[in-house]
């Protein structure tokens, strides 16, 4: 039989958006080391349900690190102690028998808590809606190979496009800033030739939306990069700052 762990969980419970939350303590017994963190919660929840208690609610879907739906701040770190993995990919072998594990939601004013560990991250969708796209009507596209893209740029754009929109950057940032997320999307599109026509508009509109959603300002603490499960680089923030100046210059001076 595989090895198992016994843990003490300190979990944030909150009935709904308005309710006052609190930390509650649970014992997680006989957790197989091969289980993922969410499977560990499944096991705890199965026990709770059997006792007729309300299970701990958390967001998740794909459970393979790509949909960006899972969240959880584990021991104060979004997506937990392992670098570059999402909570759903975090495995229990990274914990020790007898550990106390603190589990809180992704916290930020712009991410209101819906229940327990579930938060509302729709602010990120609205940032995308503000300009995180290339406006090309279906059917109006030219032949794909008419647009050649320099490999270095294509690669850099891809690195930025790998963002899964989980919001860990916001959750980890001491200022609850969404700069890493926003800059990643802007970098993805602004680096590509296809993205040029809307480049300035995109930067200005998306930044405006980010501010309106109540995210904080970036003070270059780079915590977001460390917490990001996809290793999105803060280079994108530098790029965004540059692009922002450029866009303002264009706008103001009508270049």
């Amino acid at each position: 039989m595989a090895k198992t762990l016994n843990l003490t969980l300190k979990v944030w419970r909150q009935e709904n958006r308005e309710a006052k939350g609190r930390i509650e303590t649970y014992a997680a017994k006989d957790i197989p080391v091969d289980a993922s963190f969410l499977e560990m919660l499944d096991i705890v929840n199965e026990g709770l349900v059997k006792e007729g208690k309300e299970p701990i609610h958390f967001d998740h879907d794909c459970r393979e690190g790509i949909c960006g739906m899972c969240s959880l701040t584990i021991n104060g770190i979004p997506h937990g102690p392992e670098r570059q993995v999402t909570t759903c990919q975090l495995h229990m072998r990274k914990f020790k028998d007898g550990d106390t594990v603190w589990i809180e939601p992704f916290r930020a004013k712009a991410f209101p808590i819906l229940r327990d560990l579930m938060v509302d991250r729709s602010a990120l969708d609205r940032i995308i809606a503000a300009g995180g796209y290339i406006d090309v009507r279906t059917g109006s596209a030219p032949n794909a190979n008419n647009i050649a893209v320099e490999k270095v740029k294509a690669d850099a754009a891809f690195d930025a496009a790998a963002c899964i929109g989980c919001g860990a950057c916001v959750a980890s940032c001491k200022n609850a800033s969404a700069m890493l997320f926003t800059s990643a999307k802007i970098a993805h599109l602004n680096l590509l030739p296809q993205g040029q026509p809307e480049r300035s508009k995109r930067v200005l509109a998306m930044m405006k939306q980010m501010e309106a959603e109540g995210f904080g300002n970036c003070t270059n603490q780079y915590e977001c990069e460390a917490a990001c499960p996809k290793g999105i680089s803060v280079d994108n923030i530098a790029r965004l700052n540059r692009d922002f100046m450029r866009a303002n210059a264009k706008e103001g001076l009508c270049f």
Partner: protein
Amino acid sequence: MINFPVSDWMPDAKIPSGPIQDKWSKYKLESKLINPNNKRKYTVLVVGSGLAGASAAATLAELGYNVKCFCYQDSPRRAHSIAAQGGINAAKNYQNDGDSVYRLFYDTVKGGDFRAREANVYRLAEVSSNIIDQCVAQGVPFGREYGGLLDNRSFGGAQLKRTFYARGQTGQQLLLGAYQALEKEVAKGHIEMFSRHEMMDLVLVDGEAKGIVTRNLVTGEIKSYAGDTVLLCTGGYGNVFFLSTNAMGCNVTAAYKAYKRGAFFANPCFTQIHPTCIPVKGDYQSKLTLMSESLRNSGRIWVPKSRETAEKIRKKEIKPSDVPEEERDYYLERKYPSFGNLAPRDISSRAAKEACDDGRGVAVTGKGVFLDFADEIKRMGREWIDGQYGNLFDMYEEITDDDPHETPMMIYPASHYTMGGLWVDYNLMSNVKGLHVLGEANFSDHGANRLGASALMQGLSDGYFVIPATLPAYLTTTKPGAVTTAAPEFKAAEDEVKERINKLLNVKGTKTVDSFHRELGLIMWEDCGMARTEESLTHAIERIPQLRKEFWENVRVTGTADGINAELEKACRVADFLEFAQLLCYDALNRQESCGAHFRVEYQLPDGEAKRNDDEYAYVAAWEYTGVDSLPVLHKEPLTFENVHLAIRSYK
């Protein structure tokens, strides 16, 4: 064997006449148009925001329709299309290796083991090229060569390089393109997006699909939405097996509710088992993780020749590398010399199962085979391997704690994709008027087996190019805005939903929803998985109603109906799986032949290959609902093959 009631009537598939290569252009030329000013008077309800749903919603909104789009996740960007790793096919022939629309069409029909509709597949192949153009223009970062042009790989058993890819995240990047297009229209006010909304029922008014009932997953509110037509883009039902590569929330509810309202469910038994997943570790396991098929380009699949050696490996008495070359059975290379490790999915999966059933499996559970990179690492070097598969190796190590550089990966087949789905005609409309079905939720293009990299193509083809052209065929027959939620049908449907929820909450039994789902999955996997027999299916058909009965008597659903309640969400989905599973088994039982992914042990060629019965089963089995406890009625849509000649599919 059960004698299923068979009906002579079959709705018209509305396939345009004429030579296959002209059908689609002719169709578009002859189709009715809607004046741009009138388009905004039509409301289109799009359920699902995956590749099919998001692309349809965005495109229809661009055209001027008024769109409402629903998904159960917290953002449309998280639909399960995001998980696709490998790639998307298109007949671009950028590699100059002889590809063409016809060849992609041919491969897909043959790959589907002659159980798909020729006309649909041809259209898919035709449109494939536009998809790539559209996606590139949206900024989808496909892999490129140093010259800046698009790169291709060969994938899923194709002998051509026609697969476009975006590292190991093709699905994500394509979905982001569609999602961004969708958000663009949200911002313009053309789409209203309803995230965290689950469709609970379909509403028909005068026999036509005019609305849906949803549950707001945050507030618990049951609410109806009316529209002029409904597009179901709700994905596949692979989770009927409990363990699958699908996301936790993937469900059959939307499609099943439509089935209960009269839509035919076609070929539900065509379920694809993917050969390269990480094997099961324990009964706490919640899902299975797919390792990209591209690994098969470099890995060699083997099990020990002897059971004793396999036993020792399972007990960890010896390491895989201790097994000498002559004691290894590279069974795919042995059985299929020309395709070897790249044999199609159904064939590879079955071969793995056979090896494990023979007692030569290697994971702790005995259900696993090796995928060994040692030779390739020796040949190409570690650096090259990492360049190709670095992410996948890391992911594998994260999950299993084994380093694939040092010891071979272990893989086992898992439920992955469902070719079956709601029956649709050439317009993507089901037999229920006004109900359109797109993407994995419909049955149309993959026959009995889907080729790798074809599902993404189909989802986007349906959403970006087909439905915008075919929707007017229905819409022009209706008066826009004629139906509102004031119609009594809405109230009745809402009441039914509420009652069902109440019932679930009030069972107050002792077993969890998950335990029922797990049990159902086990039945399905054992009795209706990779190899099916009349006996196993009969067993499943007996067991499922018992389990369903027990569910309704003994399930424990905690919490209340108002507000977030994950247990309730799961319970609603599992309740539908418990009914749907039976239909799936009926279909498998009815189809007394082996074809593609549907393997009936009784029907095999002497060498163990699938034995089709074209004379009796070259048809689409479209099932009509008659009641939970009564047999469904079988409608048959005969399949004719005028362009690709029926032949034994051989990958030897």
